[in-house]
């Protein structure tokens, strides 16, 4: 029982990281339809950014994080300008920007590999390394920090999409791009903003997971795959889906690793098998899109 509760904290923290990555995918997919696998590399850049800003330059943690996220806003915006907008304007099929962004993934990864070499770097903890016990719930400081930050981010995202006019513009573009343009919503600006927001959210995921996994140039792709899997499980229809998908995936992974009576090599395959099964039974994800309420 103690183990189970302890595992719940650890799995929730991991699930929150996956959920943030799924949210990064989601804010870009909804208005543009584009799946951007470079989110994992953005998370990596965020983690390296924290190393530079907080460990190297020795800015206070909140200032350093704010600086990194501001930079990532620009990176996301620039990525859209370089690799997406020209293709959308030329009327290329949807696969073209997805592939161009895969190319950008290689560019991000190799630039970091050139700048930092293959060695891992430590990413600073906001609260230090230690163990917190809240009644029966126990876990590292970082786990609780991840969970708190993620819940706050999701609350903000939910408020934005459900309660603000700008958020409704996003949703309108998501539902019908042409109609949105007719009522005067600037599609290109919405697309650019969605990429900027995606980069900020992905970098936040990298900042949060970085103290655990250290910043290194190969950390992006596994995060991109896990985040995408979480998105598929939760469905792209609603913001809460990303959170639910991330948590489900992380619990499946960690409960299998802890309790499944399997040789350790095969235990990694269980979440993959679950995913395939899930795709067959419910290909639209857990949470379906709400009707034309917006």
């Amino acid at each position, binding site marked *: 029982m103690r*183990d189970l509760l302890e595992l719940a904290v650890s799995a929730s923290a991991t699930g929150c990281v996956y959920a943030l990555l799924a949210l990064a995918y989601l804010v870009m997919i909804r208005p543009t339809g584009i799946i951007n696998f470079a989110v994992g590399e953005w998370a990596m850049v965020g983690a390296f950014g924290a190393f530079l800003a907080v460990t190297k330059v020795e800015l206070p943690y909140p200032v350093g994080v704010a600086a990194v996220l501001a930079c990532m806003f620009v990176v996301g915006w620039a990525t859209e300008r370089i690799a997406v907008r020209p293709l959308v304007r030329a009327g290329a099929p949807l696969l073209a920007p997805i592939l161009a962004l895969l190319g950008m993934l290689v560019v991000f990864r190799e630039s970091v590999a050139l700048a930092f070499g293959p060695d891992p770097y430590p990413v600073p903890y906001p609260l230090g390394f230690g163990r917190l016990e809240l009644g029966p719930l126990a876990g590292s400081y970082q786990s609780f920090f991840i969970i708190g930050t993620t819940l706050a981010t999701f609350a903000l995202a939910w408020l934005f999409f459900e309660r603000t006019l700008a958020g409704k513009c996003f949703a309108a573009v998501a539902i019908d791009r042409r109609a949105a343009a007719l009522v005067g919503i600037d599609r290109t600006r919405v697309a650019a903003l969605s990429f900027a927001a995606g980069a900020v959210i992905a970098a936040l995921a990298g900042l949060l997971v970085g103290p655990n996994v250290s910043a290194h140039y190969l950390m992006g792709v596994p995060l991109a795959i896990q985040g995408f899997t979480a998105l598929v499980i939760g469905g792209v229809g609603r913001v809460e889906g990303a959170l639910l998908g991330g948590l489900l995936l992380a619990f499946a992974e960690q409960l299998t690793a802890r309790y499944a009576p399997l040789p350790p090599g095969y235990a990694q395959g269980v979440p993959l098998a679950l995913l395939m099964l899930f795709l067959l039974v419910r290909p639209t994800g857990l949470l379906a899109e709400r009707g034309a309420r917006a």
Partner: protein
Amino acid sequence: MKRCKLLIGALALGATGIVAGGAMAQDPIRIGVITDKVGPARPYAEPITEGVVYGAEELNRRGGVLGRKIELLIEDDQGRPDISAAMARKLVDAGAAFILSLSLTQATQQQQTVTMETRTPQLTPSNSGDTLTTQIANPFFWQTGPLGSTQIATLLSYARAKNLKRVALISDNSDLGQLLAKFFRAGLEKSGIQVAIEEVVPRGATTAEPQLQKIRAANPDAMFMAGVLTPENVLILKAYRQFGLKFPIHSSYNLSVPQYSTVAKGLLDGITFVDAYDPAKPEVKAFVEAYEKAKGKTPYNLHGYGYDGIRLVADAIGRAGSTDKEAVRAAMQATNFAGVMGAQGMKYRFPDGKRTGFDPEGMVVRVYEGDRQGRVVHVGTR
């Protein structure tokens, strides 16, 4: 028109280069190096290659081998074994007298197809997979990296006083990590110790807490780490410290790289690890000092593997008296050479037709004192 002139100029320059090259009195001895510049082996292939390059420069400063300079032909296999084999062919075609393999274990394996066929001497100074000399009987291949089986035997002889009965084994899912875990398990079972639990932290995991929980529940006498991925090993150490676990940790040689003292700061005290490097050895002190002077940075054990590798090759060619492949093969097999790697007084040898040259008694056990890699506390397997 302008471009045309440029082209002609470039061709002319190239031609004079060729003429100048041909006019040199003595052709250099060409040594092929296959390394990984972009793939999964890069984190260790890079420092090892730097060690090779430095070793060749030092040899050339002292007049080369057989009065000829050493010329390194360095090829990148991108961490892909099939390209590795193609690069071995390229080096053979280019007249390499010897090939040094610094990339993945499987890449070294696949190069052997070529070196066996063309009867070209090949050495890996760093790969530690036991299967390299057992899968194919290739008389032109040698391995001087410390074997996985030697690592576990050394750790076990150190831990013998602790009277271990049931232990945990943890590794990652990288190819080398899996290979080492296999040899660790075999070594443990051979000496009558039960592997109560074996766990794997997959590449890209964000926590090792489920695995460490399972190990905690099994309550082992000690935990053996066979993984080679630094970030995943750090996850293991974080979960271990966070849970406040007390059983001792004995690790493979991966914990001997200096990166841990920055990424695992505060987590390392008291952990024992096996190493092929003793900083107190006079040869090591001389190497470190000379390297720092020449390159302006401090080398560590991985540089030592490369440095020893090129000097082993030069030694064999020197004793063979020529670059004739059969003569070099015989000379290499008769090697008796003290390098920077290994315990005090260790020599690389290939006795009884063996082709693994790292003395099974030549590894050491060291203990972390705080975040610093401490002194040697045990030598060999006895």
